[in-house]
């Protein structure tokens, strides 16, 4: 009997894995087409003359008049029928060619890739900070619900959620950069310039992570299998690592997935405060300049990132969740 169990388990896991990947693959393709078309239509319906905005993005609006706008319109073929322009973009997308920016004339893939890297770096480090700070606070708070640590953690949650990231960022800059001189205020050079923006985002997020971790840990600790683990004489540390944290992570990981998506899409303010080149920055410029290819590509990348993150979350939960083994037992 013992010899068969891993094999059955592997089969179940593999079929679940294939299911997740297939479902997410179809989702990604659908999202790509939908987002592209929507972006295109939304930019089309924005007020103002697109050729004029593009010209102003290129040359600065001081140097732009109707004549320049007309020459941009002719150069980019903006007066062609809408369906033709959209069809062109979709055809190129099929060939994985994202085209060139209307404003900077640089390849879109190159430009968006650069900002994507910046965003991913920032989001990854910010999430790490959030998990370390929030996770530690949550686990400590859960040791004695209602105790001093728990109350302090609750105050922390409320505090960091109440401070807007912009203010928090400025405070961090004033303390760590202007006063202590430990870290550069802004920039995108060495690794040290990443710390303050990531800390700003991570601190804001750590409050909620702490809350979710605390609740999950409290709940798991009261469960029968944890009590059983204690009863069978496992040391506290092992119970925590093997049973409590792992089961709490099943709750925490999907939550972090959602937060990662929010981090990637919603960090425009922090990016601009720290002059950090990320997708939010690129998105704002693209909207302002009516740079349709960059906008479409950025939105596409963001949409695919959401799908990717959800896939990773699904897989991580599949890996973490002990319940499929219980399925095996009943099989």
């Amino acid at each position, binding site marked *: 009997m013992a010899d068969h169990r891993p094999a059955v388990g592997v089969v179940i896991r593999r079929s679940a894995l294939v299911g997740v990947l297939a479902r997410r693959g179809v989702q990604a393709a659908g999202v790509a087409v939908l987002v592209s078309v929507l972006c295109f239509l939304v930019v089309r319906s924005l007020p*103002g003359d697109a050729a004029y905005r593009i010209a102003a993005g290129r040359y600065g609006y001081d140097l732009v008049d109707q004549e320049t706008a007309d020459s941009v319109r002719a150069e980019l073929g903006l007066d062609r029928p809408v369906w033709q322009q959209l069809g062109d973009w979709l055809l190129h997308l099929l060939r994985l060619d994202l085209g060139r920016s209307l404003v900077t004339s640089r390849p879109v893939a190159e430009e968006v890739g650069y900002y994507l890297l910046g965003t991913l770096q920032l989001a990854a480090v910010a999430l790490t900070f959030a998990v370390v700070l929030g996770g530690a606070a949550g686990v400590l708070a859960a040791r004695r619900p209602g105790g001093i640590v728990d109350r302090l953690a609750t105050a922390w949650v409320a505090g960091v959620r109440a401070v807007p990231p912009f203010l928090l960022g400025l405070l961090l*800059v004033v303390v760590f*950069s*202007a*006063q202590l001189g430990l870290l550069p205020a802004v920039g995108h050079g060495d*690794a040290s310039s990443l710390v303050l923006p990531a800390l700003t985002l991570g601190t804001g997020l750590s409050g909620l992570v702490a809350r979710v971790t605390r609740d999950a840990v409290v709940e798991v600790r009261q469960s029968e299998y944890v009590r059983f683990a204690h009863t069978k004489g496992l040391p506290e540390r092992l119970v925590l690592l093997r049973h409590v944290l792992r089961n709490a992570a099943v709750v925490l990981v999907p939550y972090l997935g959602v937060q990662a998506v929010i981090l990637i899409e919603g960090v425009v303010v922090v990016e601009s405060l720290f002059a950090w080149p990320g997708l939010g920055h690129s998105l704002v410029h693209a909207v302002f300049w009516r740079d349709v290819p960059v906008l479409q590509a950025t939105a596409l990348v963001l949409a695919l990132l959401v799908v990717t993150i959800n896939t990773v979350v699904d897989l991580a939960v599949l890996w973490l969740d002990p319940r499929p083994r219980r399925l095996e037992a009943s099989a």
Partner: protein
Amino acid sequence: MRTLLRARALAALPAIVLAVTGCAGASARTSPTDTLRIVGPFEVHSLEPAADGEVFTRLQVTETLVTSDLDGELAPGLATQWSSSSENTEWEFELVEGATFHDGTPVTPESVVAALEKAAAETASPLAEVPIDQIRPEESSVAFELTQPYLTLPAVLTHYSTVILAPASYDDQGRVTEIIGTGPYAVKSVELPASIQTARFDGWRGAAPAIENVTFQSVGRAESRALMAVSDQADVVFGLEPAGRQRVEATDGVGMESSLQPRTILLKVNAAHPVLGDVRVRRALSLALDREAMANAVLREKELAATQLLPPSLPAWHPDLEPLEHDQEAARALLAEAGWTPGADGALQRDGVPLTLNLVTYPDRAELPALATAIQAALAEIGVGIEVEVTNSSEVPARQADGSLELALIARHFALVSDPLVTVADVFAPEGSDWGVMNWSDPAVDSAVNALLQGASDAEAEQHRATIVRTAHEQLPLVPVAWYRMNAAVSERVDGFVLDPLETTWRITDLQWAS
């Protein structure tokens, strides 16, 4: 066992990432003694000279044939001298001897012609406006053959879109892939859109500058820039807002420099509008504006209140005129004369029609919407209703084209090339201008502009300039509101910093490290 390993791996992961990012943390406030750190709000999105070329000219990486000095007068750049034929249809620019590009190749008349032809093909470059028949390389000079006389050609050639780049700067489709200029500094690295590093170019034909390395970093938020200025993370910081300026002034080791910019915030008026066509109404609107209070509230400096169209930093265009005044009574009297009388609710009306106007502005400059609402409040006090519409800057030319524009609050730069005449001629074009007058022309102004374009000089030119400014002052087709000041926070590590009002270059070669 696998479970335990996984749990340990999970627990260890954050610690590893933290260690990796944390270990590089302690190196922030090192002031590299040989590097000048410049911070500004402008981003560099493209290497094309017509797009973001001004940054490279200001960093003294690229050069134009002609440049301008601190007084806005023409000065030799890559050309040592220039002359024109008697009809001003042929111009010759003598190139400086011994100039080399940063890749070591010599600057030849042919390479100069190639770069200029590219600039002339860019619609956005002022050079595209010049009626060029051909540009010809000569033995040690370049010659322009024009189809019509064009006296301001040397001034146009101060514009950053006309910089001379090495042939190797372009790819096979004519796009700029690398900035290979001729200036005293050469590009070491560029990371679009935010950072540029340059170093002294050993092959520079002039005296070696004192500053060896320069970095430029673009920082969008004024708050962040101010913090960098006061915490010694930058040596020169451009574009501080009032709160940041106060902070810098209260900090030791860093000071503020400022200079009036040749830019005016003004109300563009549709002079063919049934209401605004009446010069008395335009004068009344002007009299209703408390410019000092507005400049003080929005720009935090009451000296920026405009007393006439062009600021005193352009002395040739700033004649002695009676300053624009704030006088509500006079404004009401003028409006009454034009038939507008207060109704029951105090709002002005004529034949039962209330006096309400639409004012368009755009958010590209943060102070414009704020000033627009200040204007709205000021005009409400004399009973004129204003509907403020903050929209795209493209709406201004679009509504000019279809005639629906009433009032627009715009910021106009008057010295895009070193000679304001080029911009003034456009602003007062009799057929109207996207960023100038609308449905307004005046024979005296036309003939003065034409005489200046034909090369009037000295006292005669002064008289023509005065005619243009005075007529505009009286007729108010453009109602001046405020001027602009640009500022920079400069570290005491640096000696010899001077702000060039035209921002042609940042004059890094004049700087020295304070001993």
